């Protein structure tokens, strides 16, 4: 079995896992959940870093830099805004 097929196998399993993970979510958690998953796709920052490291001229360096800034804002902002939302859920338990 080639690496590509193995990777594809993981991809397909992940699709089903994603569906199964959030089958029962109370509606009040829909927004934090959306925000949390939004932060997780901020992993694109890794991609931005990898392509910027490979950049070989001004154009690709500039675009790679933008990709890193965007990805970084997505991942850090995403986790922080989610935490801020969830902080408020915690407070009301007292």
């Amino acid at each position, binding site marked *: 079995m080639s690496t590509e097929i193995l*990777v594809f196998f*993981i991809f397909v399993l992940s699709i089903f*896992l*994603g569906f199964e*993970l*959030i089958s029962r*979510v109370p*509606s*009040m*958690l*829909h*927004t*934090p*959940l*959306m*925000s*949390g*998953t939004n*932060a*997780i*796709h*901020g*992993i*694109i*920052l*890794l*991609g*931005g*870093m*990898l*392509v*910027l*490291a*490979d950049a*070989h001229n001004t*154009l*690709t*360096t500039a*675009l*790679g*830099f933008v*990709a*890193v*800034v*965007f990805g*970084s*804002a*997505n*991942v850090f*902002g*995403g*986790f*922080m805004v989610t*935490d*801020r*939302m*969830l902080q*408020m*859920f915690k*407070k009301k338990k007292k």
Partner: protein
Amino acid sequence: MSSSIALTYIAAAVLFILGIKFLSSPKTARYGNLLAAFGMLIALVATIPLLGTGETSLLKHGWNLSYTLMVVGIVIGLIIGAIGAYSVKMTAMPQMVAAFNGLGGGSAALVASLEFLRRANSPEGITTFFATTMLFATLIGSLSFSGSIIAFLKLEGKFEKPHTFPGQNVLNGLILAVILGLCVYLTGWVTTNTTAFIVMFLLALVFGVAMVMPIGGADMPVVISLLNSFTGLAVAADGFTISNISMIVAGTLVGSSGTLLTLLMCQAMNRPVTNVLFGAFGSTTSGSGAAGGDAAGKTVKPIQADEAALLLSYAQQVVIVPGYGMAVAQAQHQVRELSDELGKRGVEVRFAIHPVAGRMPGHMNVLLAEANVPYDQLCEMEAINPTMDRVDVCLVIGANDVVNPAAREDKSSPIYGMPIIEADHAKTVIVMKRSMAAGFAGIENLLFYKDNTRMLFGDAKASLTALVAAVKAS
């Protein structure tokens, strides 16, 4: 990839999975978010040895300009993210999620584009498989970028009404056809035609705008959720392109769980997702003119704060239905104060939360939590409706479409069939509203004209302050 990096990526993937799992329960949600953030941190650290190939490799050849830019870029992103996340008002959270999602989408499109440019100029060339993943990531990422910006602006109150014109669906279809044609050309012929690629990129941006413009502001939560899952898929495709397994797993998890979340949101509004995306909700408002016509002959009965306070103080059961108006007026603290005052007088106060009240599911819970309203006072729609007949006063604060009996009575109404909080079943309904303007869906609310309804006009915060003072005095 060395096995230690691979193992770290597996650990990160497990943390993401547990994070999403914990995010679906109120008790563990915050912990779940921190777990996912920790997973992200170790995935980032594990990537450092992979940076650069050949003479740009960080480990073998050390620091260069790209790495300086990388650190600067991450710090800038961190600052933008922190300012966005901590300065934003709680009411503006939905916009913030849209903005961050758009940035992620833009990043995903850029990563794929850069990889295309690199491979187009390299001797190894492009295979059909890589061409497909790159084009997919570019297409989905850039439409998520521009679509999220439009969603952001709509939630900020810019052109929030649906924008439609004759032949719009045909035009959108044409743009999509050209995009797909270019994709087939670029993948099928495995060409390195950069111009075709750039045209495709730009058209995808245009398509993102064209896709979101006709959708009304009220449906933005669904759109953001959908674009969120799109970005996830774009990231997964990028993962294939640059052979990074952690991006594939994380992106796919977001893509599929986001799709399910989108469907759950549509379910809460009792509308199929196709209706949200292509229905141009607003265009049907002219069709509901009948409902407006019915109401035109009727009159509303206004009420003053002191009279409303008397009704509330001598009630046994009060249900408060918060909506977007409460969020706009930042009135959640006054609402809590009113509920506490009534509680002291032995009135049983509950809050009825409609699944799509506000601009995001859960929006009201977040705001009321901020004002320290206890958990057990918040009731879901299904729990409150059967008890509505026994409720003395139902206080509607800036909610509109979610209490509109047209959803139950008027078959011509665009919201017909949507589950609502049956406020009109209470003995008396007090509606706090700024004016008689129609709700977000742009339709007349039959509730305002019912015999048992009283309208308390004015800004929600000012009215509530007056109410609290009047209740204290009574």
